[in-house]
């Protein structure tokens, strides 16, 4: 084989490798609001302590039915609920706090359900043929994931790759509901529940960060542990908000304020937003439109898919997720805050 042939062969192999890893990357999500460049995010990453995969993602999750899960879950235990392609699954917080990512499959979609205890964010992503792992790095105190096809780093809250071959790509999000086991089970009696057979040994009876009931430890402490890019004092740092964003604006709704409303309307420029409170799950659902939104709350009913009403047809559903205020603000310092203090 001559030199030119060898070079051609090597180039072909390299191209195949690169295109192969690109194909295996998670599917591209919609363009997403970013308040800093990818480079700025990459530079702000720092080690969280454990190394890559020191926090082991669950790659072969096992599930039980609701009746079996009752044996180890209390009604008030926090679960992260996903309803996707007609299937309901609950991921107990007491398990995910030790693993942070579950690489699961629902229907025909490979999904990664991620949870960051430091920022109280649970977000689902379509992972395609690859899977996500815990990089051991943090950005704004929030977990940074990596994909096993290209080894790129992905920010959970921003939902984008901040370095590596996938840099600039966004992930397609899937709604994850932060609720309690009793509430999720009432909405989805046929739900499956992640079991403690995770492939790793952990003390799932203890949350190393503290407790949500009663609120203790890191979750109650006012201080932050890791540096963040932006800080704000309008709400206590660890106060829970429901956050969502369009291409142009990020909006945070104080969870306490949302509990007092049936629906919230907000206009930002020529974008119209509607937030519907879901009393049964104690969460909210967000929608966007280019035209004013009319909705009579009396017409709302809630099914496994979420809120249903004729007026919701044609609106763009936006993924929303709970977060600690400090974390949302660190990523979106221009965020709108809906907390009832000002009329929107």
């Amino acid at each position, binding site marked *: 084989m001559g030199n030119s042939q060898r070079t051609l062969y090597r180039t072909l192999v390299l191209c195949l490798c690169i295109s192969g890893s690109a194909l295996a990357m998670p599917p591209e999500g919609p363009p997403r609001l970013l308040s800093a460049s990818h480079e700025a995010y990459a530079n702000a990453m*720092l*080690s*969280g*302590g*454990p*190394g890559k995969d*020191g*926090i082991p993602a669950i790659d072969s999750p096992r599930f039980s039915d609701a009746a079996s899960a009752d044996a180890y879950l209390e009604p008030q235990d926090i679960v992260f609920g996903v309803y996707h392609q007609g299937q309901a699954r609950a991921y107990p917080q007491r398990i995910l*706090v*030790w693993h*942070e990512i579950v690489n699961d499959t629902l229907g025909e979609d490979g999904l990664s359900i991620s949870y*960051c*205890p*430091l920022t109280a964010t649970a977000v689902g992503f379509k992972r395609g043929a690859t899977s996500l792992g815990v990089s051991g790095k*943090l950005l704004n*105190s929030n*977990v940074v994931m990596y994909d096993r096809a290209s080894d790129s780093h992905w920010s959970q809250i921003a939902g984008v790759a901040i370095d590596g071959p996938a840099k600039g790509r966004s992930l397609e999000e899937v709604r994850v509901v932060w609720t309690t086991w009793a509430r999720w089970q009432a909405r989805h009696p046929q739900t499956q529940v992640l079991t403690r057979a995770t*492939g*790793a*040994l*952990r*003390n799932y*009876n*203890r949350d*190393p*960060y*503290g407790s949500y009931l009663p609120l203790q*430890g*890191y979750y109650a*402490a006012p*201080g*932050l*542990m*890791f*540096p963040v890019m932006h800080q704000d004092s309008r709400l206590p740092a660890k106060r829970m908000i429901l956050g969502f964003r369009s291409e142009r604006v990020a909006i945070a709704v104080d969870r306490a304020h949302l509990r007092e409303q049936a629906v919230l309307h907000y206009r930002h420029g020529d974008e119209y937003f509607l937030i519907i409170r879901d009393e049964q799950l104690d969460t909210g659902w967000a929608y966007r439109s280019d035209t004013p939104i009319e909705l009579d709350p009396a017409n709302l009913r809630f099914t496994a898919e979420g809120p249903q009403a004729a007026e919701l047809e044609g609106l763009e559903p936006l993924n929303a997720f709970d977060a600690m205020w400090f974390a949302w603000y660190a990523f979106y310092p221009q965020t709108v805050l809906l907390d009832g203090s000002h009329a929107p």
Partner: protein
Amino acid sequence: MVRTPPSWPLIGALALLYALLYLYAIGDLDFGRVEWSWQALDWQWQRLLARRGPWHFEAVAMLELGVLVLLLSPANLALASVLALLLAINLHGALALRASAQCSLSQGAASSAGLWPALLAGGACCAPSLLLVMGIPGLGVFVGLFAWLLPLSLLLLVLSRCWQRRRGAPRVLWLL
């Protein structure tokens, strides 16, 4: 004042307590209401040295004993044993020197400086458990330094033992 010679049962008990404290600090030993059960992972050699973090290794079995949870990691147990052994030898040396009036109580206490860093290095999930428990704001930027706490403990314990030997403490093992 009557100075008593070192008591091995007392030293052994303190060393065992220290090993348990170390296992508690890294999360391999915990208390709380749990079931009675036993779990073990499928046997694979590489599991023995699978790392959870710097100087922190994965468990291969877990015991739940009603009020106590024990994660069994051979590597973590070995590290706990080495630390406890070094502590025992240091304690023996300090007590022996004090019995022969060659070392004051404060000098003996100073030689125990090596005990503490390892207890502070314990791992949790996103951050060392010490940071989580103490909730010291902003301490996370120093998280990389926590990887050095266990080697620091080992080094300090060895150095203090060398200092004791130079002061005339009796040899306990063939090397120390």
